């Protein structure tokens, strides 16, 4: 990895917002491609953060501050990417399901997907099945991402999938689910297309589902 990319990568893992912002700008000044900075430094860094979380080295506070460092870098990178009109690989409607206000995991997934060149329609938390359906209907989305932290709100994932079916939109989108109480089996049982246990694996899953 080139030294400047290594510094960006390490900056995200160490949650150094200012360093990441500065180094991303520096890399752009060196006429490095935005896509390269993203894919060779920033996305791998968040994947590493995800791995550290999975291994019990990092917990939610570390994830959050690392994500903020990633965001700081994205704030510099995004205008350039928009200007260069980098093709999005997929369009994602994301939300935490109805009754559930926990949005940390969902926000991380959105940010990682955005970093992986997906376009995101983030509906926030406490999103009703109808709101998911509306957005899918009125956009060119091809992926739906649902999150739930509570065992008591998980059933609204199934309700949302049913609502998509009822609206004739189920075939238009791939549905992915995640959240602390979720399992692959649960995802299979409710008829989702995929489940990911963490944000980095959510990106890999989304790419696979859209064939990117």
């Amino acid at each position, binding site marked *: 990895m080139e030294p400047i990319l290594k510094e960006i990568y390490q900056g995200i893992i160490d949650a150094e917002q200012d360093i990441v912002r500065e180094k991303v700008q520096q890399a752009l000044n060196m006429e490095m491609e935005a896509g390269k900075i993203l894919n060779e430094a920033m996305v791998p860094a968040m994947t590493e953060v995800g791995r550290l979380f999975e291994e*019990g080295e*990092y*917990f*939610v*506070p*570390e994830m*959050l*501050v690392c994500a903020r460092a990633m965001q700081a870098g994205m704030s510099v990178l995004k205008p350039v990417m928009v200007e260069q009109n980098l093709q999005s690989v997929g369009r994602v409607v994301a939300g935490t*399901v*109805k*009754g*559930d*206000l*926990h949005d*940390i995991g969902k926000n991380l997934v959105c940010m990682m997907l955005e970093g992986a060149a997906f376009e995101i329609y983030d509906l926030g938390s*406490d999103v009703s099945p109808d709101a998911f359906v509306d957005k899918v209907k009125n956009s060119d989305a091809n992926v739906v991402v649902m999150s739930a932290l*509570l*065992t*008591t*709100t*998980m*059933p*609204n994932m*199934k*309700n949302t999938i049913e609502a998509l079916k009822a609206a004739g939109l189920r075939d238009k989108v791939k549905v992915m689910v995640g959240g*602390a*109480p979720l*399992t692959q*089996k*649960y995802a299979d*049982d*409710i008829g989702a297309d995929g489940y990911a246990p963490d944000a980095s694996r959510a990106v890999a899953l989304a790419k696979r589902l859209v064939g990117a």
Partner: protein
Amino acid sequence: MNTEGFLDRVSSGQVLVADGATGTNLQQRGLAAGKPGEVWVFEHPEEVKRLHSDFIAAGADIILTCTFGGTSIRLAQEGLGERTVELNRRAVELAHEAVQGTHVLVAGSLGPVGQMLKPLGTLEEKDCYQAYAEQVVALDAGGVDFLLIETQFDLVEASLAVEAARDLSTLPLVCSFSYDRGTRTMMGVRPSKMAQSISDLGVDMLGINCGRSLQDNLEALKELKEGTDLPIWFKPNAGLPTVDEKGQAVYDVTPDDMGALVVDWIAAGASVVGGCCGSTPEHIRQIAQAVKR
């Protein structure tokens, strides 16, 4: 009130049985997915009371008020923020009606406020303290036998809750954490660290409730026991759920599975045993029978 009873009974070496889950059981009885159980305190009080009665019939020595999400911060999300005190008082009344004529104790349940404190989130410490303070006063005035601050994961939030309880009530106090990353909370807190930090604030009992698997819960219990001389409250969840054809969460851990583990929980140092998410009255019956064996 049976206030004297609680700590005396525990310190005499008696193992007490606490109830099972509130939310997942009310859901099985028709509570809509995503609705907190607290809304049924007003909408279906008879069902809340019936669940209490079912746990008592199953052998519970302690029932928890249906006030887990009873801080104004959480209730505001249901449009009930203004009725926080009324809801907590009503929930205590329902518990009292259910225990009438028995020696069953009523624990006033206080769960997390559901928002992250600054700097990770946006919640101010003083607002968090205030929310717990209001609920502590309402539960205390309602006449619960002791206070239970439960399902905590963040040392700062739990400390604010404990401080509010200590500042405004003389009731016995239990503080229980949820180790949903195995033997760490989602914020990375270990049982040993929790024992050290929370004991210093002056609680009467430390605890573990909910988490990941029964095995992880037991590991957390062992670590907590090494870190404290206080009695231990232990209410593990019935594993993680899968889903049935109706879309309802179902828990694979059977009442017999849980009952069979009670001997290990007591051996590992639990003074109060019960169940969290997924634990039905039948689970509690098996736990109670194992305790009495």
